């Protein structure tokens, strides 16, 4: 009994120490901004690695999610004779929820895990220590460009996912299932509010971008520098990101649409 209490205490101490380290880490990495302006090449290269290389995955997934939304939405809406609202339904779900959330989850699996593994491996092979000994701060040279690249890439990828998803839903709904094209688009246009829906969706994608990339680079930087440690950190990175994204999505949704 006393033993398990002690273990619980140690565990919570570990968790809080880690949270503290993560916060400090985040601030230090953000402080690497001036370097990014002086040497834009570092940032551009990372934007390519985390952003451009995720485009194919994000577009394909967006397309499929949109098509599924088209099918399922049509099934439900046609029971009420409301097929014309299919466009609104697809657009609202994508803009408000699925766009930012699914993109964040995919992004964490594709780019986040790669970031964790890359940084963890650099730590395990002493490349980070080596840089420090060469008087180069790995926080600025390695971590900051990756963090900023992830934060910048995520909203763009989410917008792409949403756009392609709507096209996928259109493809299934209009040419395939015969929903009227005019009402599909006009209802969507009149019901989707710029502030209420689009801006909130963008805010979500920015928040998720910060969360996912932060977790990814921190897990890599904080990993136990062995091959086992790196693989565990990579798993943690994806798992924690998923939890953090879904949890914060609930909070954000409650704040934005909760009235």
């Amino acid at each position, binding site marked *: 009994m006393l033993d398990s209490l002690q273990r619980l205490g140690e565990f919570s101490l570990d968790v809080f120490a880690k949270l503290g380290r993560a916060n400090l880490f985040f601030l230090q990495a953000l402080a690497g901004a001036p370097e990014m302006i002086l040497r834009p090449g570092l940032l551009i290269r990372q934007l390519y690695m985390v952003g451009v290389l995720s485009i194919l995955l994000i577009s394909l997934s967006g397309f499929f999610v949109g098509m599924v939304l088209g099918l399922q939405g049509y099934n439900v809406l046609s029971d009420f004779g409301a097929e014309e609202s299919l466009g609104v339904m697809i657009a609202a779900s994508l803009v408000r929820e699925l766009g930012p959330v699914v993109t964040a989850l995919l992004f964490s699996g594709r780019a986040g895990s790669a970031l964790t593994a890359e940084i963890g491996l650099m730590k395990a092979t002493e490349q980070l220590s080596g840089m420090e000994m*060469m008087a180069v701060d790995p926080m600025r040279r390695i971590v900051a460009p990756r963090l900023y690249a992830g934060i910048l890439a995520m909203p763009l990828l989410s917008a792409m996912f949403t756009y392609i998803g709507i096209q996928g839903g259109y493809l299934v709904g209009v040419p395939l299932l015969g929903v009227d094209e005019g009402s599909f688009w006009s209802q969507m246009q009149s019901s989707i509010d710029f502030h209420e829906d689009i801006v909130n969706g963008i805010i979500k994608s920015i928040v998720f971008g910060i969360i996912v990339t932060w977790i990814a680079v921190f897990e890599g930087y904080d990993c136990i520098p062995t091959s086992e440690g790196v693989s565990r950190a990579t798993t943690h990175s994806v798992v924690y990101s998923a939890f953090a994204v879904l949890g914060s999505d609930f909070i954000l949704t409650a704040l934005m649409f909760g009235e």
Partner: protein
Amino acid sequence: MEAVRDNESLYNHCKMTENRMDSSTDTVVQIRGLVFDRGRRRIFDGVDMNIRRGSITAIMGPSGTGKTTLLKLIGGQLRPKEGEILVDGEPVHRLSRRRLYLLRRRMGMLFQTGALLTDLNVFENVAFPLREHTDLPNSIIRTLVLMKLEAVGLRGARALMPAELSGGMARRVALARAIALDPMMIMYDEPFTGQDPISMGVLVKLIKTLNHALGLTSIVVSHDVQETASISDYIYVISEGKVVGEGTPQQLQHTDSPWVRQFMDGLPDGPVPFHYPAPDYHKDLLQC
């Protein structure tokens, strides 16, 4: 600009930089009463060391005694719990970040694995510190990099990626990188471990010639007794957080500490027993 190829001019070039940095003391690293803990475990418990300018000093001890940790303490990557570490007269653990980074430009460190940046080729790895810390034009960087690579015999390997190098070559590239900024001292972390006899011989010779040609101070951490003793001017043997023996290689050959004897001669049994503590063998077998 014409590439400087022969060793003579390399020697002069580096000698000049060295003289500029020469300070009055002849001790480069001074460690006083060093205490350091890792969690609950005490790694160092009152260690004193002096590392003379221009010498090759070996630090030997069994695996896990904290040799790598000691180098990281000297490099300012870890902070001592108690005690002082002066590098070139400056207390590393009390320097501001900026001063520490300036000091580190004058220290080279060779990590156990080489620690080459895996996404850059050999040339760019050696050029890395120059590009990070200087605004030299490309032509001069090229000349400097080729000089450093020539010094370790790998000028021809400049286009290879780290993954294509053998262990010995990777360490030589890392060595070229460590001398890129003309440091006053180099720390080698187990440079010989896992090397075949030929690359071992090459590394032994390189450490010695570079130390003399470039007027460096070298700290070699190792448990390869013969190779290390053959090139070092002074040896510290550490175990269980303390310096258990020190002296020139000759002095240590004739030490009367049985522990140091066992370590230097590589005997399987002695004060450090062959058997990990266990209950009586016969009783253990007959149980069950």
